[in-house]
């Protein structure tokens, strides 16, 4: 099998909450199964010039987010094409917001999103910070840490990634967290997200392999450490 190509968008500007942990987790879990991976980064002014098998983008500071919003528009078409091909995507926090239709900043400025997710986000003066636990029909219980003031509203026909058991998620009232749209995931969970949620990591890898081998079914790994770390995180207040 050819190596899976991982595209990391704006790693220099959107990398605030241990986002590299997600890349580390994906590549190590591929390695454990004998799947080779290749890492690519594309930042401002760099074109998405080929087909990738996984797309990842992390969270950033407000300034980082504002600085890439315009450039992301130039990548919109290529990213939509990837999404249409069912390429797995993981977008965290600020990236999740910009993959929606738009993001209104605390100053009232509207940053256009690329509309892969049918969702909109508005900054508020309430910061949602803390450990968060959600329940997903697809992935089971997921755990992470959230730190955002943006409230995301899922528009008609969108499915959340999960329902909130503890914490805030998309907003303090909605009890929903993130979005799951085909193979694309948006979430406020970092911590890093994937290492303590290996079911999601494996879903992404499985979807990526299926792009070339539709019948592929991913095998299990020994995840006792992942599960133990996740269990402890769930019980932290």
């Amino acid at each position: 099998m050819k190596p899976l190509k991982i595209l990391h968008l704006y790693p220099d500007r959107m990398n605030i909450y241990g986002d590299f942990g997600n890349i580390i987790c994906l590549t190590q879990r591929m390695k454990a199964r004998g799947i080779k991976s290749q890492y690519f980064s594309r930042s401002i002014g760099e074109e998405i010039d080929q087909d990738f098998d996984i797309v990842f983008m992390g969270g950033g500071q407000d300034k980082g987010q504002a600085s890439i919003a315009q450039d992301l528009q130039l990548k919109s078409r290529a990213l939509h094409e990837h999404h249409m091909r069912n390429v797995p995507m993981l977008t965290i926090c600020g990236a999740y917001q910009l993959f929606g239709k738009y993001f209104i900043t605390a100053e009232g400025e509207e940053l256009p999103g690329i509309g892969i997710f049918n969702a909109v986000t508005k900054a508020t003066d309430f910061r949602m910070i803390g450990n968060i636990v959600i329940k997903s029909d697809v992935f089971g219980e997921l755990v992470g840490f959230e730190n955002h003031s943006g409230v995301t509203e899922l528009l008609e026909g969108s499915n959340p990634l999960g329902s909130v058991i503890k914490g805030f998620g998309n907003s303090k009232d909605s009890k929903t967290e993130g979005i799951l749209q085909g193979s694309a995931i948006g979430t406020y969970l970092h911590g890093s997200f994937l290492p303590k949620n290996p079911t999601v990591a494996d879903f992404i890898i499985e979807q990526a392999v299926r792009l070339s081998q539709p019948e592929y079914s991913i095998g299990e790994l020994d995840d006792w450490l992942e599960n133990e770390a996740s269990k402890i995180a769930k019980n932290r207040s």
Partner: protein
Amino acid sequence: MRKSIAINSAKLARLAVSAVGHEGTSLPGLVAEKIDPGLLAKLAKNNFSKGVIVVTGTNGKTTASKMIADVMQSQGISFIRNQAGSNMPRGIITTILQNSDSKGRCEADMALFEVDEAYVPAICLQLKPKIVTVTNLFRDQLDRYGELDSIATSFKKAFSSLDTTLILNADDPLVASLASGLSKKPVFFGVSDYTGETIENDNTADSIFDSENGEKLQYLQRYFGHIGIYTSKVSKFKRPTPNVELVKMHKLSKSSSNFDVKTSTLTQNIQLKLPGLYNIYNSLAAYAVCKSINIEDKAIASSLASSKPAFGRGEELPFGKKRLQIMLIKNPTGFNQIIQTFLKPKPQTNPVLFCINDNIADGRDVSWLWDSALEDIAGYQGKVIVSGTRAYDMALRLKYAGFKTAKIVIEPDIEQAIQKLLGSIKSGQLGYILPTYTAMLKARSIISQKSGHLVKGISQ
């Protein structure tokens, strides 16, 4: 009236705290602050005729403050200072009250305060310091401090209204950018000669962008994180020429360093009995501060030569024939500096204990572990133990960095973990403890009890 009630209540609170046996570091200040919110400004106004010095920044506050204190002490300067960790308004109020009479009058000519980044604007506006030094600015406990850019913006705003000499790290672009638009010329310190160990998997460069226009800075050399020699391709922004400059590095090791520093008056050799590049930066900050209060270069150098590590920041504690070295870690850049200085150099055989807690003072969010360069030491030969409330998170981080899971000892209980660490240290050998803040306090007190040595209290 309110001021005197506040002062007396605080003094009572301190007595009460002392009576139950704890060193009251912030409760008295908290009481006083509640009664009179403007108390700090009032206390500062009639005190410290020769000025207040504020030391802030993400890493190095405590060590740089201690170095400055050592130099000031050697010169017989009369000053007071806060204790490590008591670096919020209430801790500073407590420090002043502890050293003052019932009217809030303090005999000291000067005050030296290490200040938590989040409180720099509030404290500076009240204390009106003569000197503020910023050691560096890195991502740190985002759940507590918020974003780095907003910290920098709040600093800039506060400094612009003050008549303060800023002493800034020239090699940190975000810190250096604090100088723009100031009426008073800042003093810069920096390192112009470095060829030591570097981190390969460095994900901690937060501010590699020109703060004016967001363009990526060009680095001629990067030492760690976003620290190095940089220039903007599009604007006039570049690394300022340091006024206190390391011009020649002779030696840099796990335990000491030797280098030449050039100032406006002379170039002289400095011997430092502290490890790593990060402590060299701390010493340059201290040098620049002391020079700004007119202490002679020679006197600064001789005092720095005898500076010892601050509380929990590389201090070595004897344990029978074994030795333990405690190195506080609290953010990826600091962690990487410890990796670069202690864990990366071969033969990598000292047993090491990582104690990761996630209490409020540690930061609740442990995602910073994933930004730390554990990949750089994936082949570490010595015993590895993980502990603390997030022991399993640390174990997981090590697993994904390439450590063999079977070799990692997981012991969430810190006391048990220290016991296991001691069991794997050979006679005469040094074991490392890398704790977060609350784990550091715990580890120190456990070691103190176990060894029978009196490990000095909260002070340094």
